[in-house]
């Protein structure tokens, strides 16, 4: 079964990692790289992507003529999607375990951030005839 793990960060301004000391930035990046490496080695990795910062985000709606109407930046949003993983695991418990490991990524001073990671099961599609 596949799960999407969504990592949220405060949305009021650019990513806070930009204000951390060098050592802490490197520890944080190292933690994420090691996690992805482990997921690959375990055959659980489907995809992981980091997203560009909140100040680059736009909300898009179709206007009357169907043309895109864009809106942004959103200083009011409390939470912002910073990145996500899709993992293929045997049980929900395993997905939660991976989420906890991502959540505990080190922050300023090396202390675990314990970020909230939203875990959602990915709906399975109908059997495909493609390929």
């Amino acid at each position: 079964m596949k799960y999407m793990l969504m990592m949220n960060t405060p949305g009021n301004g650019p990513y806070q990692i930009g204000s951390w000391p060098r050592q802490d930035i490197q520890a944080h990046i190292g933690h994420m790289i090691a996690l992805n490496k482990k997921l690959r080695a375990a055959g659980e990795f489907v995809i992981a992507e980091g997203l560009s910062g909140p100040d680059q985000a736009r909300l898009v709606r179709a206007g009357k003529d169907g043309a895109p109407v864009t809106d942004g930046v959103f200083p009011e949003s409390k939470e912002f999607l910073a990145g996500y993983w899709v993992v293929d695991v045997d049980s929900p418990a395993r997905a939660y375990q991976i989420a906890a490991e991502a959540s505990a990524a080190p922050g300023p001073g090396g202390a675990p951030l314990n970020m909230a990671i939203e875990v959602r099961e990915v709906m399975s599609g109908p059997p495909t005839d493609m390929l």
Partner: protein
Amino acid sequence: MSQPGLDLDTEHLLRDLAPQVLGSVVRRYRDFAACEDAVQEALLAAAQQWPRDGRPENPRGWLIQVASRRMVDQIRSDSARRQREHAAALDLGQVVAAASVESRADEDETLTLLFMCCHPSLTTASAVALTLRAVGGLTTAQIANAFLVPEATMAQRISRAKQTIRASGVGFDLPAARARGDRLETVRHVLYLIFNEGYTASVGPTLLRVDLSSEAIRLARAVQRLAPDDTEAAGLVALMILTDARRNARSGSAGELIPLQHQDRSRWDRAAIDEGVALLTATLGRGRVGPYQLQAAVAAVHDEAARYEDTDWPQIVALYTLLGRMYDNPMVALNRAIAIAMVQGPAAGLAILDTIAADGRLAGNHRLDAVRGHLLELAGERDGAVRHYLAAANRTTNTAERNYLLTQAATLRDAAPG
């Protein structure tokens, strides 16, 4: 990138033969889309059968025969074309008989295929995919893997590219001499994009990815061989080799980006540098000097400096000035500003950045902020440097580059007094 059970030698042979086989089959049967499918099937059949039964005596003839049979089968199954069945079956014998003697014609056909796959009517993404498959002999799965998209997506992209070619009525012919230069330029551009895709992606976890840089170099060498009069084709090969020579030194153990200044130059590939410099030297002055030769010359100046401090910056300024005259591009101007800062000091470079920013074409581009951060750091203006490094980090879409810029900003901030 290899298929299970297929040794590297055989895979390379198959990939070298792919465009020649496709060229021969297209010449007989005309229908590019169907022929391309047939050749892919023949390559797959070879990948399965050769390791088991041994390599045939005439590998190219074998592939042409199998692909032609597929074409005949398809034509045969198409009732509206029943009339052509007999003729096509006869053709098969001729194609195979001709296969062993037409090496010059086959080379022209590889070039014709490249012209077709890099046709101006195609989007760049389509041209890249079609080139890798039809000329590079990669499977759809391998190409999809290289670009990290689902195989079905890549299959559709290739299939639409073939439809576009069919709809545009491009024949399988060499372009007229007059158009040849323009078409070669498009081919070079597509190969350069493939190289860069591989090169920028070569930082970080890239397990299972086809090595696009090596593939681009292989194809660029083919173009150089097929168009020996085209000095820019040689320039492109030199640029790729001289850039790729630094590959092992440009990222650290955790995949972090290491800039030129801090690279361990003993890890550069000396043999590749020697080859690139020799090629460039033999090319410059032989004909028209173009952007690829000039960029290769810049790469050579970097590659030949034993230490970063030994870099011949005045030479680099001269090369970028020439390039800028030939080619009004703000990225070239940006690189020239860095070189000028290294010769005349950061203030001179920063003054040029103001002109580039006023021009507006790089508005919102992270490179402008990254370079300004770098020059402000050189000037000792720590706060400004941090601010621009962070602005660049927020804008770049490359993870390795973002991590590098964040680290640069943090290093400067950590060193701040108090």
